[in-house]
């Protein structure tokens, strides 16, 4: 029997606390779309996506209306495109990107991810052509997101790819200079990239996946923040200990995850395709009250970046996983708390005041999901320094057997402290200063591979 207080708590969660399903992402295998040439392949790609996703957005909206829970983004992820376009040159990959963009527009999805490659051990000639195509491909498309896996706990870090990527990030920002380098916000570099992540820019449909699959990304920083405020108000700060707080986060995450599970199952049923995973990430939006940074401040640091921030984030991340994992049949993707600076108003403010620096963010990424995400840096920072920042983050993921990622935006012509605003879910933030610029080029110049850590040899 449903209890009144539970009913009212759920109503509060949906109506006042920004609960939504952040993303329903349909994964589509494109390996069978390979034709004799670029044009033939593009035609098949558009045809397959068109058929697979014909009713996708409409069904998401229908289920969303029935349950009264907003599904904020409807997205598609595809097989990493470097596999689909094996043998193509950079122009061929740009054509593929344009074709994916047309398919995404026709399917009415918000974004399509999977313009990607996996090069953690070595690069083929195709992979190099793919990398060379990224700036133009992203500049000429509206809805395409790119990602590349350049490191893993098993294979180490591909330093040749890393050097190329440092330059690619610069080129991407430069080619979209009139949009403050927005192109770089659509490209993310990974270590241990999961093949079932529904969140962008890093969503791909992994090679290990079935032909079609549906993954769901839940959200809920606002719900967690309000639940904690209510707990502190009703029980009194002096009567609570940290383990009580962790317990509240677990229970709240359970409920949030269940909403995602329900929506995912119903959309899957309607479409007749397999339901993959729920990604438990606490994903903030620039909306006030929907911030991971705010949770950290509620839990006891006056400003994000102050000592204690990393420890609190570690507890938050763990409690989110514990609460969510029981709520869902299958959990996957990134599953943790995101700290994307531009997309989180409280983090952006802390970055602007100087309380939160790049090095502290790096430390925080050791204990949370993903990594250095949506961070605007001065356009003057050189490619080798960007590559070296990425290398540090990749090393954290590699050694700790976790997914880490980097999405830096070197804003052309702007310096630290100036504001960059991409609008919508991409948000706004003051540009963060980078210390010790130009001092890492000898390291990046080595190339080759950083060997995998000793604990990767478990056979």
């Amino acid at each position, binding site marked *: 029997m*449903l209890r009144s207080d539970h009913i009212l708590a759920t109503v509060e969660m949906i109506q006042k606390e920004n609960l939504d399903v952040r993303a329903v992402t349909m994964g589509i295998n494109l390996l069978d779309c390979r034709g004799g040439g670029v044009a033939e392949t593009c035609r098949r790609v558009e045809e397959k996506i068109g058929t697979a996703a014909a009713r996708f957005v409409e069904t998401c909206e229908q289920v969303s209306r029935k*349950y009264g829970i907003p599904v904020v983004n409807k997205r598609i992820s595809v097989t990493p495109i470097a596999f689909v376009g094996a043998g193509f040159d950079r122009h061929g990959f740009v054509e593929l990107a344009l074709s994916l963009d047309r398919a995404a527009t026709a399917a009415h999805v918000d974004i399509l991810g999977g313009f990607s490659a996996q090069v953690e051990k070595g690069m083929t000639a195709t992979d190099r052509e793919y990398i060379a195509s990224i700036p133009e491909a992203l500049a000429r498309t509206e809805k395409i997101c790119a990602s590349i896996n350049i490191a893993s706990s098993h294979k180490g870090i591909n330093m040749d790819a890393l050097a190329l990527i440092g330059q690619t990030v610069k080129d991407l920002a430069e080619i979209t200079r009139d949009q403050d380098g927005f192109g770089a916000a659509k490209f993310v570099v990974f270590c241990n990239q999961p093949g079932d992540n529904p969140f962008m820019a890093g969503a791909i449909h992994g090679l290990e996946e079935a032909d079609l699959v549906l993954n769901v990304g839940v959200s809920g920083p606002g719900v967690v923040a309000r639940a904690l405020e209510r707990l502190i108000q009703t029980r009194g700060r002096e009567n609570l200990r940290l383990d009580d707080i962790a317990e509240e986060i677990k229970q709240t995450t359970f409920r949030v995850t269940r909403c995602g599970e329900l929506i995912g199952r119903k959309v899957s049923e309607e479409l007749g395709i397999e339901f993959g995973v729920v990604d438990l990430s606490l994903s903030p939006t620039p909306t006030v009250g929907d911030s991971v940074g705010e949770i950290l401040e509620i839990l006891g640091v006056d400003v994000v970046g102050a000592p204690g921030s990393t420890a609190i984030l570690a507890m938050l991340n763990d409690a989110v996983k514990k609460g969510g994992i029981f709520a869902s049949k299958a959990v996957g993707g990134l599953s943790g708390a995101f700290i994307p600076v531009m997309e989180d108003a409280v983090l952006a403010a802390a970055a602007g005041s100087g309380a939160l620096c790049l090095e502290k963010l790096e430390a925080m990424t050791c204990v949370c999901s993903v990594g250095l995400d949506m961070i605007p840096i001065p356009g003057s920072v050189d490619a080798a320094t960007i590559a070296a920042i990425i290398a540090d983050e990749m090393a954290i993921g590699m050694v700790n057997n976790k997914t880490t990622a980097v999405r830096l935006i070197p804003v052309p012509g702007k310096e630290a402290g100036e504001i960059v605003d991409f609008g919508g879910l991409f948000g706004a933030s003051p540009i963060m200063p980078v210390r010790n610029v130009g001092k890492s080029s000898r390291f990046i110049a080595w190339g080759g591979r950083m060997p995998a850590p000793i604990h990767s040899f478990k056979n």
Partner: protein
Amino acid sequence: MGKQMVMSVMSKDRPGIVADITGVIYQLKGDLADLNQSVLCDYFSMILIASFDDAVTPEDVVAGFSHLPSATKLEVVVKEMEAPLEPAQEGRSQEVYVLTVQGQNKSGLVHRIGLFCCQHGINILDLATTLSRGLYTMILQLDLSHVESVDAIRTDLARCAEESDLHMVLQHEDLFKATTEITLL
């Protein structure tokens, strides 16, 4: 299988009412099918369905209750069912929604919602209300299986909420089950 009867019992609340009522049914060799009870402001109310042998009449059942050595008076109504009833759960609609309504207490609130449901062909399966510090809360379980468009109901409900200065939320019951129950079917 004999006959089914529906019984309604009301009394001032006290320990032992359930034992008394079911004792009467047991004495008459009745078989209890389904029951629902609640207590409101110290008053006990129960509705129950039981089957009896053909020889037993509603008057026999009422007589059984009147002979109880009870400290409180049980007010009983017994009716014989025209056709045997299925237990409620078996035919339960898939389109059960939960409507929550909150607002400042004033007369006519429940009537307003009742009228809304009536005008829209919505059956109220369950209704509970509470009053706390002037805030009146209604929680209704509604069967929307005969409704053509839930969207249209939401739109009309939003208008009704605005006109009557009430906060109303209509959500599918699956959502509440998902967020509060361990099993998710």
